[in-house]
């Protein structure tokens, strides 16, 4: 099908994007890579009055190491992350995950911020950023705030973000050089959305061990203290049950297997 009619403005700064939003109506939407919005428009599941294109905002494409961690611009593409745009061990972990998102032609345009704002519970960044304890820097018409990645998603394609709020960057805490990460995505064909996601992030130096169970019905389930889970593979089933999956169901099984495999991968590192 073809997209419905809408207006279009190109913003060159965050301020300009917010100004376009403020001067339009509430059915305006931001456009980043269009790799999730495009299908929704072509299927006429989204009918925005206007698209505010944020691809030309340089600030959204910056990626910096700070004393406290990393700040990745919301407009950084999956392909840039795959190719190593994010420095350090966390960057290497993110590169592997980026490689597993969709296909190169989609990764060349799709962005980190667009993926988080779109909030498909099966999206890779939704789970990954919750696992890594990231914060979203968000700016709206009336001010700015931070939203923890862990509590961003409220349901399928629903977030805590107000319609005017633009994700500017994603802030990651400083994981030490000793930190290890693992990720397991279960899908039937490379590049498809996940049937199940699981990951571990273990930083012995900071005493942090987190795990995530993703591709749920809504927000990813974060296990903030996952040392016990790391110690005993048998704890996986109970963790998946606690994440809301019905024991005995197919979904419970694939998520438990994903969690065990993510655990194996962390131990193998």
């Amino acid at each position, binding site marked *: 099908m073809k*997209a419905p009619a809408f*207006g279009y403005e190109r913003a060159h700064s965050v301020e300009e994007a917010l100004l376009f939003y403020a001067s339009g109506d509430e059915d305006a939407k931001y456009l980043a890579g269009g790799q999730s919005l*495009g*299908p929704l428009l072509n299927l006429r599941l989204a009918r925005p009055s206007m698209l505010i294109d944020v*691809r030309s905002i340089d600030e959204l494409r910056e990626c910096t190491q700070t004393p406290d961690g990393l700040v990745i611009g919301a407009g950084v593409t999956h392909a840039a992350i795959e190719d190593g745009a994010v420095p350090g061990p966390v960057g290497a972990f993110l590169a592997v995950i980026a490689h597993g998102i969709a*296909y190169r032609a989609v990764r*060349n*345009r799709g962005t980190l911020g667009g993926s988080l704002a779109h909030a498909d519970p099966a999206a890779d960044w939704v789970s990954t950023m919750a696992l890594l304890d990231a914060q979203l820097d968000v700016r709206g018409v009336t001010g700015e705030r931070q939203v923890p990645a862990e509590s961003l998603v409220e349901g399928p394609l629903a977030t805590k973000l107000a319609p005017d709020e633009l994700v500017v960057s994603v802030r990651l805490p400083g994981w030490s050089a000793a930190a290890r990460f693992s990720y397991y995505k279960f899908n039937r064909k*490379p590049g498809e959305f996940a049937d199940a996601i699981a990951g571990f992030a273990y930083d012995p130096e900071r005493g942090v061990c987190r795990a995530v169970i993703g591709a749920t019905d809504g927000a990813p389930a974060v296990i903030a203290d996952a040392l016990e889970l790391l110690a005993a593979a048998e704890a996986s089933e109970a963790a998946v049950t606690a994440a809301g999956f019905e024991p005995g169901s197919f979904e419970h099984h694939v998520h438990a297997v994903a969690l065990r495999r993510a655990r194996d991968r962390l131990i193998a590192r």
Partner: protein
Amino acid sequence: MKPLHFTVNGKAVVTRVAPRTHLADLLREELRLTGTNLGCEHGVCGACTLEVDGAPARSCLTLAITCEGAKVRTIEGFDDDPVMAALREAFSEHHALQCGYCTPGMLVTARDIVIRLPQADEARIREELAGNLCRCTGYVGIVRAIASVIAARNSAAGGR
């Protein structure tokens, strides 16, 4: 309708476009470049894959209006490209096409694999091709064709 200035296959194009028009429709319907095919129009099949600013993109998920100032290259724009010439030859030799519907997108993706991943083995080629569906060939010939071009380039580079 909004003004749009961009480059298609090296030629400057100035036109007006409705924001809802995706790049493939503009190329096919207005510029009459029908080499770009449309299958699913939601990013899955890869038939519409072309190059925007040197990188493969889905033209069904790229609004034409977002291409202001961009350099677009469609399958019609690779006549003088040596890598594409080698791929065309190899596709023909290895029976990598039948009806040809997937072929323009397949070739653009193949060229990206050859240039970006000179070490790609069969498994990697197959993984990279996951976003381009072919209903005819079963992929065996396509994978062989791409592998043969990579091998020829590597031995040419090694022999220099």
